[in-house]
């Protein structure tokens, strides 16, 4: 069965480009892992699993869960601030990338970190992709 995309590749790239631009970054950013994560993100945006809204200088990233956890079906990540990174350095295991990703996303989405432990399939992949991007910003 072919995967049905809701959004065209061009629109997805445009919204991710606007997101990167708001952080003074571009697709040609030298950090390879950020490029790879953003390439992965195109697929999730096209599928409608991740929504990116950039208005003026405010970036709103949200994730629609295919498999809701603890009755939560949509995660809305607020603007990344220093406090979120501080929570990561205090609560996450510095040697575990996954742990750092989940603690950061939990703080941004204002949800319990245990919600992220229970994510499945593409919901988990999308969260890990977003975690990689937010950690590298």
């Amino acid at each position, binding site marked *: 069965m072919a995967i049905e995309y809701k959004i065209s590749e061009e629109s997805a790239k445009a919204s991710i480009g606007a997101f990167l631009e708001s952080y003074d970054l571009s697709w040609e950013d030298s950090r390879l892992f950020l490029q790879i994560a953003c390439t992965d993100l195109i697929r999730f945006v096209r599928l409608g699993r991740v929504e990116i809204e950039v208005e003026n200088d405010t970036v709103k990233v949200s994730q629609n869960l295919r498999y809701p956890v*603890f009755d939560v079906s949509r995660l809305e990540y607020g603007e990344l601030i220093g406090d979120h990174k501080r929570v990561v350095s205090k609560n996450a295991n510095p040697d575990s990338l996954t742990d750092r990703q989940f603690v950061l996303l939990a703080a941004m989405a204002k949800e319990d970190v245990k919600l992220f432990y229970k994510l499945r399939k593409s919901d988990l992949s999308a969260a890990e992709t977003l975690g990689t991007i937010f950690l590298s910003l």
Partner: protein
Amino acid sequence: MSHVAGSLREASLNGVTYRAIADNAVTVQNIREKRERVLTRYSSFEKSIVQECYIGNLKLEMDPTEYDNVKTMNARIGENIKMSITLADGAMYKGEGTLAEISEYDLMEGTCTLKCSAVTDFALFAA
């Protein structure tokens, strides 16, 4: 799975996890409606009273900056705090609301005691 009684493991406020202090008697009041019987001279009739659902005496370990953050997040009028507590067996109470009481910060222990009051009630997710 049978419930494992014991100390609370941790609590999360707006996605930030705080370690709960062991051997602290946390109480959960999660009954939204109370039924009472009103007595009359003839037959009695039923009265339903809506009451506050809360998690009380929640003693959490936090540093002074985190204590300040908790106070700030509670000061935003009209914005609910997402709250959850994890029990000893991993079961979780989850809800949204406000912090009805924030105690003074105990510098010696590095703790603060809260009362979390839910908008409606807390949902229980089994371990």
